[in-house]
């Protein structure tokens, strides 16, 4: 196993023999590692019987000890179509601002700022959406990145059934459970509040 570890700059083979995956780049017609880690080659199962046409994909993967360690030392960035978990920090009539803390099921080291614009809250009847009846500061929301946005914000969307609020507290501070796609109910008082609720799995 000692030999399987590579460092950045280390050549892994000619560029024609592999399809470059993650953690590698091409220089001088060679596949070169760009990370410290293990070399992983995945044969590309061709749909036909003759597999010769599809060279295997070669990647370098940095192994991690525990998920906790991974989360603290993550080089993860949100990208378009990433699914994220975020916490609503501010709302106004046009948009809800959120702090992204999970990207594709991995916790990020520093929170990224995202916005959910009013037109991206819901798939249908966009004109009727009101931010105030969809999100409240402190709500935990599952969303999808739709654009890298401007210099400070990622643009998020909850316009899908499985996206929206997944955890929220009522005005009196009690936790709530979803009762339908647009309402949540307080555990203690039974008060019902409006939210854009994500469909529970």
């Amino acid at each position, binding site marked *: 196993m000692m030999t399987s*570890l590579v460092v*950045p700059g280390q050549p892994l083979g000619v560029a024609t023999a592999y399809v470059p995956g993650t953690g590698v*780049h091409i220089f001088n017609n060679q596949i070169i590692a760009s990370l410290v880690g293990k070399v992983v080659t995945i044969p590309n199962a061709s749909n036909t019987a003759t597999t010769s046409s599809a060279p295997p994909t070669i990647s370098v993967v940095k192994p991690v*000890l525990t998920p906790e360690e991974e989360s603290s030392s*993550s080089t993860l*960035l949100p990208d378009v179509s990433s699914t994220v978990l975020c*916490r609503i920090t501010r709302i106004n009539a046009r948009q809800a601002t959120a702090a992204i803390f999970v990207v594709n099921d991995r916790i990020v080291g520093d*929170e990224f700022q995202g916005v959910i614009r009013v037109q991206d809250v819901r798939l249908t009847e966009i004109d009727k959406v009101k931010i105030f009846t969809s999100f409240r500061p402190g709500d935990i929301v599952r969303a999808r990145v739709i654009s890298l946005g401007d*210099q*400070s914000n990622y643009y998020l969307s909850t316009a899908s059934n499985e996206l929206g609020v997944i955890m929220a507290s009522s005005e009196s501070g009690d936790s709530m459970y979803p009762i339908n796609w647009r309402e949540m109910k307080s555990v203690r008082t039974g008060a019902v509040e409006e939210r854009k609720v994500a469909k529970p799995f």
Partner: protein
Amino acid sequence: MAAKAPDRRRNNPPSHGTNPPVFLSTSLPSSTIKPEQASRPPNEIRKIFLRTGLVSSVTGSSFLEIAPLKLSVSVLGPRPLPRTSTTPFAAQAILTTEVKFAPFASTVRRGYLRDSSERDLGSRLYQSLVGAIRRELYPKSRIEVVVTILDSEDEGDEVNTVYMEEGKAAFEPTFRDAGRAERALGVVLAGCITAASAALADAGIEMYDLVSGGVSTVLVDQFDGKGKGKEGDSEKRLYVRDPAIAPPEGKKPLATCVLGYMAARDEISELWILGKLGTKNGTAEMEELVDEAIAAARSSRGVLNEAAKERVQFIVDKAQSTTQTDDTEMTG
């Protein structure tokens, strides 16, 4: 998941304190580690001690020791850009580098604010690393490299004092080693480059190649310059890799070269030469010096490769071993 606003103004230390790293491989008590011996051959670099993953609250870190130089590097990010209106959209990661001597790192105390030589070291380090990082993979983010020099050999000592004889005019030509400060800074810079590469690799930031630092100095016999025999003095030139701050007895340094070198690509990412190099034979004198520095950088690259692999190797081994132990000294 507490709704605590993260403090983005500063790089925070771990919330739970740290345990000082214990390096099992260091078998000698620190008191027996002698400062640099003069017996080292000129083409050999000092022993480098390099470890990664010591600081738990940052993405990547490293600690380097080339007696007596000690420095630690933290890499933060890729993290969000500061939320100011003036920050432009960044299609690729913005790299920032910062080199700071601890106030107690040198004979003469340094202040807490970075002085011009520290800022200059920071920009040299930036130059060395910026080309090697695949910044285009990390849009809208910044990568911070913070180097703290804990101990260093420096120019403030007695040996480096020009003694002006009592009753004698001060402008009598006295031998002075003008390149001394640069040599000291050069060794520091080379250490910073190597350690920062290790920390970047530890952070899992994609790079085209690792950059290792190398230093070399060219010396001549001290009393050589008196005669006019300039043409013939190339034989007497002595090239020293990873030079100690005090030149060998009877030798006078001419020039020092520091570089960041990407060994796998055979490319120099940063070059800093200071001193006097003749051009009678074109750039031959300079090239020889540069080649020596490259050789020094190649030597440190070996250490760098091992250090970069070390923690990953540990993880691989641990994952494979079926017997679970409570050994946590290497977790970061």
